[in-house]
């Protein structure tokens, strides 16, 4: 199987804090990869390195390489803006733009970059909202504010917004942690449908969620990658004792 993203000896720092320590991981194409581990183990930081969102934080640094289709995204000639259009991201807390309508939220990435063709934008809105399984719920209120819908709908709106710029990879940073079980189930179904077209990396606190939807699972602890493999293997016969302890709930 092809690897979409490969990290080589990836280190991430916040000032003096060493958050990600020499991580090597190969994210397979068109599959869902889950990253699990206790709070503060560097899961979010790891995926934020993959679309160069880590450097947005003050005092943050990265060393090592992140290869997207074989090209280093930290190459000096690589524009972070280009990387982020290829590698989309959905955050822990739904963050639709409050001053924009649902319609404008979906096409924010296109409109903010100067796209003005209404016919094209209309088509993108419909397609993206359908992909995010939100179309039927909001098609009659596209003019409503992006924050006027429920939390679960807002999160799917954020997924639609990320899909509208046609990325190849979708990074999700604990996308369901603020949602109830029904909204969570909807997002999980959605991710399952999306993996044919996209490479998906999801950070989650919820081990059941990883077991339900992920093809591959990585376990991180204190900034290091402890174990990575097929989800079934990680959950049923992990190689490391630490992984087994975490999976079985004996710490974390």
């Amino acid at each position: 199987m092809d690897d979409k993203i490969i990290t080589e000896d990836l280190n991430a720092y916040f000032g003096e804090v060493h958050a990600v320590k020499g991580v090597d991981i190969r994210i397979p194409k068109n599959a869902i990869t889950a990253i699990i581990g206790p709070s503060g183990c560097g899961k979010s930081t790891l995926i934020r390195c993959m679309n160069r969102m880590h450097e947005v934080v003050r005092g943050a640094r990265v060393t090592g390489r992140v290869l997207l289709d074989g090209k280093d995204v930290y190459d000096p000639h690589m524009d972070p803006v280009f990387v982020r259009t290829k590698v989309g991201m959905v955050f822990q807390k739904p963050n639709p733009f409050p001053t924009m309508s649902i319609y404008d939220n979906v096409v924010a990435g296109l409109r903010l970059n100067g796209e003005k063709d209404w016919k094209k934008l209309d088509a993108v809105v419909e397609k993206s909202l359908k992909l995010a399984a939100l179309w039927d719920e909001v098609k009659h209120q596209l003019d409503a504010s992006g924050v006027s819908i429920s939390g679960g709908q807002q999160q799917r709106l954020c997924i639609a917004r990320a899909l509208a710029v046609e990325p190849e990879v979708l990074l999700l940073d604990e996308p369901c942690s603020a949602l109830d079980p029904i909204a969570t189930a909807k997002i999980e179904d959605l991710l399952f449908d999306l993996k044919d077209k996209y490479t998906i990396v999801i950070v989650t606190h919820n081990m059941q969620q990883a077991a339900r939807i992920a093809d591959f699972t990585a376990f991180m602890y204190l900034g290091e990658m402890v174990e990575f493999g097929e989800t079934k293997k990680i959950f049923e016969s992990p190689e490391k004792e630490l992984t087994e302890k975490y999976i079985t709930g004996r710490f974390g």
Partner: protein
Amino acid sequence: MNIYERRRIKNTLASGLALACVVLALIPLVYILAEVVIKGAPALSWEFLTSRTVGTGEPGEGIGNAIVGTLLLVFYAGLIGLPVGILTGIYVSEYGNNRFGTTVRFFNDVLANFPSIVVGLLAYALVVAYLDVGFSLIAGAFALAIIMIPIVANTTEEALRMVPNSLREGALALGVPRWRTVLKVMLTNARSGIVTGSLLSIARIAGETAPLLLTAFYSSYWSFSPTEPVASLPLTIFRNYNSPSDVLLEQAWGASLVLILIVLSLNIGVRILMRPRKRKHKAVKRRWMTRLSRKT
């Protein structure tokens, strides 16, 4: 007496004290407003608002040229001060996470507390004397702009910092370049704070007197040229108050009332303009409704 009752009494006392302080703070405000209205209202007439300041205390005088002068001063000062102040605020908030940004922030704070007469002196030395423009509207506007800049910069920075970081990250993660993120997402969401700060600074400079003494000076005539001395409401008040004539004194109160009304109407006007509009959203809705109805 149990602990809950004691807490309740403490709570009542504390909120009562706070309320008393609010009333205490409002007394001078209400007093000044009432005084200005009572003493200034009799002076108001169409003639008063449209005639020029002659300064003799004869009937038929007014403050028309001073009103125009103050509006021109505020306009030119805003033309210089608002863009510089807002851009400084944007820089310090969005790009100023370094030593230079910290320095700018520090000097901004210093400048914000600078005595306005010193700013006037600077404008005098630079524009009036060194550039040899002489006492003029533009020198006055320059001095007022310098007073404006730190106020506008500080409130802009504050307003931008209030915008949740998640919105900035949301835009950046969509592959929107940093400058567009600042322009389209951050500024839109900080809009009301920035407007409030700008209004605050305009209200502040509209009443400045000391720096104008050294820069715009004074004129009894109608003057619209940027390079000529110009009359202003604060200086008219100042000059008339020093005169022995009762007519001129009444005119000073009238000018005070007009000054307050100008600042107030500016405030209210901009607030009405800034109310969120739904026009664009409605256009989207109309388009979609027709499309959806065609399909079904």
